[in-house]
């Protein structure tokens, strides 16, 4: 049942973009942010809230820009390498960040991401400062496509990756490592006494979450054609957490559902008022207070009742 639902949703997305091509851009970005929010949700499972994951989103987009400048001009290679870049940064940052918990973890992630943001904004000679860097259109298997074609390829590739990566992350969360990650949230002492190195469990999760954010960032960079420091600003990180929580951190689809939900909400809000942040803020508060499982939780509960 759940598989059918998910498949239907993916087909619907594909059809939507086909029916309204301009929506492709928005949907591509939505999926990109969904990846990053999924990364945040992975860490939330361990009870760790990162207000800094936009850094990895941005790092990977910058990575794509630099790699393109260095002459790497293949979509697949760009995606893989820039995700590796953010995973590497994630592993390095994570190796000292995962020692901290609760508010300290949040604060340190914020601090690291703000250093990154400030450096991107201020090192004009390297990063182009607040103007950012262009991310040119790469070739796909050696073929250079026109802009609209490339954007379609990128969208359908993102859609495919959403399914594939989603499945992989789902498997990961269901594996011993994934369960150990959730266990960090409930009882770290017991984990230690099971002989499980919490540090390593978290570092792996942190690296995975950075890679996910990086995948999102690379897609976003390619879709937008430009990367700017604002990608890494703390409010961007806050929005990622928001998407993850709105969708519900319980399952992999939550992050993507959260992104989609925000779209619908915005469509409703914008016809009434310009102040869509107001609505997003209110919705966030309402969801947290009254629907702790997020929107995905609604689906889950329905299913539990019907089965």
């Amino acid at each position, binding site marked *: 049942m759940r598989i059918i639902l998910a498949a239907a949703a993916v087909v619907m997305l594909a059809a939507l973009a086909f029916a309204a091509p301009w929506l492709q851009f928005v949907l591509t970005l939505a999926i990109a942010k969904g990846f990053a929010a999924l990364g945040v949700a992975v860490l939330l499972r361990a009870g760790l809230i990162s207000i800094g994951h936009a850094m990895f989103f941005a790092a990977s987009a910058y990575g794509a820009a630099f790699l393109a400048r260095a002459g790497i001009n293949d979509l697949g290679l760009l995606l893989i390498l820039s995700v590796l870049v953010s995973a590497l940064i994630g592993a390095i940052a994570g190796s000292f960040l995962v020692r901290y918990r609760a508010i300290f973890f949040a604060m340190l992630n914020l601090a690291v991401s703000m250093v990154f943001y400030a450096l991107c904004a201020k090192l004009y000679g390297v990063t182009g400062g607040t103007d950012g860097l262009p991310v040119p259109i790469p070739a796909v298997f050696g073929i250079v496509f026109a802009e609209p074609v490339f954007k379609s390829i990128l969208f359908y590739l993102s859609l495919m990756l959403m399914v594939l990566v989603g499945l*992989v992350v789902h*498997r*990961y969360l*269901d*594996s*011993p*490592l*994934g*369960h*150990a990650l*959730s*266990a960090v*949230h*409930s*009882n770290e*002492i*017991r984990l*230690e*006494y*099971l*002989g*499980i*190195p*919490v540090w390593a469990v978290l570092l*792996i999760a942190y690296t995975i979450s950075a890679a996910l954010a990086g995948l999102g960032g690379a897609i976003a960079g390619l879709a937008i054609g430009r990367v700017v420091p604002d990608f890494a600003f703390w409010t961007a990180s806050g929005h990622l957490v928001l998407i993850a929580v709105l969708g519900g951190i319980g399952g992999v689809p939550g992050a993507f559902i959260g992104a989609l939900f925000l779209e619908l909400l915005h469509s409703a809000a914008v016809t009434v008022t310009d102040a869509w942040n107001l609505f997003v803020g209110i919705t966030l508060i309402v969801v947290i207070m009254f629907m702790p499982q997020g929107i995905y939780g609604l689906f889950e509960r329905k299913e539990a009742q019907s089965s």
Partner: protein
Amino acid sequence: MSRPILEAKNLRVAFNGVKAADGASIAIHDGEFLAIIGPNGSGKTTLLNICTGYIRPISGSVLLDGNDITRMSPRAIARRGVARAFQIPQLFSAQRVIDNMMLALAAKDGLWSAIRPLETAERRDEAKALLELVGLDGDTDRISSTLPEGHRKLLDIAVALALKPRLLLLDEPTSGVSALERFPLMEALMSALRQRRITALFVEHDMDVVARYASRVLVWNAGNIMAEGRPDEVFGNAQVRERVVGVA
């Protein structure tokens, strides 16, 4: 007598000036069921904390199979075959009972697989067998935080057993367990320990349990060993009767 598995020598440790151990030494040998009794606040849990690396003594050392483990982490010590069950159960309260068990089983052998699921038929059977042992086989799919306190305690012990330890440290295994269930639990536990050749050290308040199951008893008081010996010897000691057993 055989070589001790675990040996703690000349331990000194203090909290806010209160001495929890003051130069005491203990040893536990292969196949023993060593009970530690003593008044509340005498530092029995602290002793377990030291032996498992959770806190470090001011001075003194802890040896496992003759190797110094004083400065090791609880994790490293656990990986050397020492498991612990806690006075207050330490569970993954948001997870199901069976997941608590399977994670413990995975910790022993299959943690590093990030792609294969935690739940395998093999692991599930093994977990079920242990749950049956402690009498929780009816609760496998419950979220562990919804168990009554006594059952949480049992689960905590089952989790420790799942690690297939050589040495099991039990902190008041029967506290919180109803009087009716106490002896059946201990019977099951003892048979499991014997069957799996697990040495055990347990801190206990219930003198009936101690008298019946301990192979040796050690009386801990104010950071020192007050008396030591077979249960009948120790309970024969007048000082112990007055200061410890009476209180307990």
